[in-house]
C-alpha cells in the first residue's frame, strides 16, 4: 500500500495529503492483507527526492535499450553506447540523492515486442524525447548545486534523440 502510494505520488505529483487520503480509504484492504497501518512503525515513509523520477527514467531507458539489443542484435553497436550513457546518469543521480544504485533492469517491464529495427529505433527515439522534456523541467526547478548535472542529462537525452534519427 505504502509503496504504491509513494510511486503514485512520484509519477503523478499528487500531493501527500491526497495520497495519504487514498491510503486511509484503502484501510479495509490494508487490514485484510495485514499490511497494518496501525503497526508500530516509527519511521514515516521517506519523501522521495525530486530527482528520483529522473533516476527511475534513466534506469528504465537503459533497460529499454538492453531489451532492444536482445531483440535486434544488429543494432547493438549503435545502441550500446546510448544505454551506457543512461547507466552513467543513473549512477551519478543515485550518488547525488543517496539512493541505492540501480540494480539490474526491471524484468518484464511492458514493451511492445519489437519486430523490426525501424520500429525499435522510433520507439526509443520517442522515449528519449519524452525523457528530455522531463529532464529540462527538472533542470529548471533544480537548486543551483544540481542544475549542471541535470542540465547535462537533459542535453544528453537530446543528443540521443538526434543519434536515433
Amino acid at each position, binding site marked *: 500500500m505504502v509503496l504504491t502510494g509513494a510511486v503514485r505520488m512520484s509519477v503523478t505529483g499528487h500531493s501527500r495529503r491526497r495520497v495519504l487520503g487514498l491510503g486511509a480509504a484503502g484501510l479495509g484492504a490494508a487490514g485484510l492483507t495485514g499490511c497494518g497501518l496501525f503497526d508500530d512503525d516509527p519511521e514515516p515513509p521517506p519523501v522521495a527526492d525530486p530527482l528520483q523520477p529522473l533516476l527511475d527514467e534513466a534506469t528504465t531507458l537503459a533497460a529499454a535499450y538492453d531489451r532492444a539489443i536482445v531483440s535486434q542484435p544488429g543494432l547493438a553497436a549503435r545502441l550500446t553506447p*546510448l544505454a551506457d550513457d543512461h547507466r*552513467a546518469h543513473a549512477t*551519478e543521480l543515485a550518488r547525488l540523492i543517496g539512493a541505492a544504485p540501480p540494480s539490474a533492469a526491471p524484468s518484464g517491464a511492458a514493451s511492445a515486442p519489437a519486430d523490426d529495427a525501424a520500429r525499435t529505433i522510433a520507439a526509443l527515439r520517442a522515449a528519449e524525447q519524452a525523457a528530455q522534456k522531463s529532464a529540462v523541467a527538472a533542470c529548471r526547478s533544480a537548486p543551483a548545486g544540481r542544475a549542471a548535472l541535470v542540465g547535462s542529462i*537533459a542535453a*544528453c537525452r537530446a543528443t540521443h534523440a538526434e*543519434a536515433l534519427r
Partner: protein
Amino acid sequence: MNPQLGAALAAEEAAIYAYGVIGVRLNSRGDETEARTAERAHRGRRDYLVARLAQLEASSAPSPAGYELPFPVTDRASALKLAIQVEDGVAQAWRPVLPVTGGNDRGTALAAMTEAAVRATRWRRLAEVTPVTLPFPGRPERE
C-alpha cells in the same frame, strides 16, 4: 552570473570565427548547410549574450582580434574535427551558466548547451566518429 555569461560569449565568438575557417574546407552541400546553420545559431546566441550583458550593465571583455585554432585546418577531416571541438567547447561554456541563473535565463542557457551538444553529435556522425554522444555534454573532461 556575469563572468559565466562573459565566458559563454567568448565561446560563441570563437565558434563564429571557427566556422569561417571550417566552411572553407567543407566540400559537400550537406556539410556546408550544416556549417551555415550552426554559424547562424552561434550568431544568435552571441547577440543574446551581448544584449543580456548590456542589460546587466556588465562590460563584456572585448573579443580578441584573432583566434588561435587548436590545430591547422587543412581538409575536410580536420574541419570536422574542429567543428566537433567547437561545439563541445560551447556546451562547456554554457554549463556553468546553469547554476548561477534561474527561470528563463537558465532555460536559455540549457537550450544553448543542448543545441551545441546536438550539433556536436551531428558532426560526429558526419565525421564517422563513434560513439556519437557524450554521457555528460558540457562537463569538462576532468571535473
